[in-house]
């Protein structure tokens, strides 16, 4: 693996509350190679968005990074002064949010929003920036961009707006794009197109992508690697083909069993009984232990660290001492 573009180590995010700090992310670690696409999956509330916001430095108080470090191309960015971090946002790390309908300022023409972003990060002239904006709109597949560039956001459909958002995030050629559920709010019929645009642009602009979604199908088709998150921790992370075909962590198994298979026999939605714990009630030991079909005594006392199994890592005591074979064969039934 080449030197990582992004390296997150032991990231811990806390929310200060009246009853003491709530730990929302705990011990999140992963690397991302240049140009790589990392999928992040997990139930809602697992900490996917917080991970993205922590990386780009946009955690809203009372949330804050309480531990660990984040490095971009080797340089620490989690403790930069605000102005230095601002210069990284948009230029080296771009972010796309869930709802294209509300991501664009309704009162400004999309061309103006593009131009202001381009001018913030480059020394182009106004006219050159507009040329650039037109080129970007063409690239993201907006038909007749010279006609649409002076339109307001409400004049675009949801899918078209998300294309504009992608163009905006890629304005300054960031090396990393964080896409937080970029298609969840969209009509099912355009979701695949938007993912395709995102993937193509990331490739053409040599950007690595952190693709947050709870659509395992999208991950399977798009990502190189995938991280499965649960209760603010990474349960399993590894190459997509491996994790999807043969998940190790019991939670990941439950999640993967829910994807329809190519053979047409849609697997039954393996219901994992119970629900993810609230932040204030994460059980000691393994956070998944109250729901885990394979739980044993140690799980309730000691928290499993990420354990390396081949090229991947799973935070589960079943894989202590690398005993992969026996539990992996046990289907979640």
């Amino acid at each position, binding site marked *: 693996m080449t030197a990582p573009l992004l390296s997150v180590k032991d990231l811990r995010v806390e929310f200060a509350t009246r009853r003491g700090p709530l730990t929302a992310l705990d011990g999140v670690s992963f690397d991302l190679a240049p140009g790589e696409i990392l999928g992040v999956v997990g139930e809602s509330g697992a900490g996917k968005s917080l991970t993205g916001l922590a990386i780009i430095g946009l955690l809203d108080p009372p949330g804050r990074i309480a531990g660990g470090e984040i490095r971009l191309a080797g340089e620490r960015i989690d403790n930069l002064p605000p102005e230095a971090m601002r210069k990284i*946002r948009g230029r080296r790390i771009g972010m796309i949010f869930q*709802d294209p309908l509300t991501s664009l300022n*309704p009162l400004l023409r999309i061309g103006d929003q593009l131009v202001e972003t381009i001018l913030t990060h480059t020394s182009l002239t106004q006219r050159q920036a507009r040329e650039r904006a037109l080129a970007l709109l063409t690239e993201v597949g907006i038909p007749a961009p010279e006609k649409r560039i002076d339109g307001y956001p409400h004049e675009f459909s949801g899918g078209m707006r998300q294309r504009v958002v992608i163009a905006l995030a890629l304005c300054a050629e960031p090396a990393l794009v964080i896409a937080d559920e970029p298609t969840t709010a969209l009509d099912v019929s355009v979701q695949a197109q938007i993912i395709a645009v995102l993937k193509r642009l990331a490739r053409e602009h040599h950007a690595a992508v952190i693709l947050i979604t709870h659509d395992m199908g999208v991950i399977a088709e798009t990502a190189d690697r995938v991280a499965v998150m649960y209760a603010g921790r990474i349960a399993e992370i590894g190459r997509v083909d491996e994790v999807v075909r043969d998940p190790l962590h019991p939670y990941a198994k439950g999640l993967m069993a829910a994807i329809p298979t190519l053979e047409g026999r849609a697997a039954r939605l393996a219901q994992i009984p119970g629900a993810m714990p609230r932040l204030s009630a994460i059980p000691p030991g393994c956070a998944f232990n109250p729901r885990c079909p394979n739980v044993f005594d140690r799980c309730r006392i000691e928290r499993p660290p990420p354990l390396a199994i081949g090229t991947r890592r799973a935070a589960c005591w079943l894989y202590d001492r690398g005993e992969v074979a026996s539990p992996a064969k046990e289907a979640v039934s």
Partner: protein
Amino acid sequence: MIAFIIRRLFASIGVLIAVGLIAFVLFRYIGDPVNQMVGIETPESERVALRQQLGLNDPAPVQALRFLANAARLDFGISYQFKQPVSELIGARMPATLELAFVASIMSLVAGIPMGVYTALHRRSALAKLFEALSLVGISLPTFLIGILLIYLFAVTLGWLPSFGRGDVVHIGSWWTTGLLTKSGLKSIIMPAITLALFQMTLIMRLVRAEMLEVLRADYIRFARARGLSERKVHFRHALKNTLVPVITVVGLQLGSIVAFSIITETVFSWPGMGQLFLQSVQNVDIPIMAAYLLFIAFLFVIINLVVDLLYAAVDPRLRVAIHGA
């Protein structure tokens, strides 16, 4: 756009006719106009003649129509107490009130919007806390008390500013008078304007603050930050504009009520405006003036509503389309 304006104009005329009818009822049926106009010892025959001459014996709908038609020509009859045409009386007082309201509005906007923005952006700063404390005072102190305090401080104790009247005025055109062009006029308007502006400024500041805080939580603000825009751009280009959209309506309607509120301020500062005239007319049951004043206030609000709608369209492209399309 034109169609929208025309439609709104028709609606506005409807409102004015409705208020006009209320004014008519007030005019015709509260007290007897003839009794108000004549002396105690006027003989009955003269009263009958006057009644006939004023058309008070005609059927009510005819009288109502005549009242509306006259009102449309700004003819509101003769004031009972001054024995002068009401339109002349109001016309002579109107510049004073409108000028005061205008200056007060400008003051409340020029101070209120920046204070609201500041308190929203620097919630924890000492200055923001001070502004908020002041705004509580501004909201809870009654207008007349503020006026009296100002008079005590700047007129009685320090002797810097006059405590009553409008100062010297200059005539502009046939009927407008302004105090804004003379030194004594300018000095005279300061305290009444501040008194009138204080409450509005407080309202505007709190509204702007609340809206701004709301807007700062919006997704497009987070996305603007994620694109690396400077805080200044995020605050003043992206947030402020969106903040002002809802603020426009409230501010517009507040400007209307500044004119209505001016009654108290005009009384405290003996400001020769319509508010004072209205108070006198209430004391003397001078119904024609009350009716005309009612219509004037209705007209003012109708105009303000229309302007607010147009401003909305100017600021918010989504409404522009809605208005175009409709």
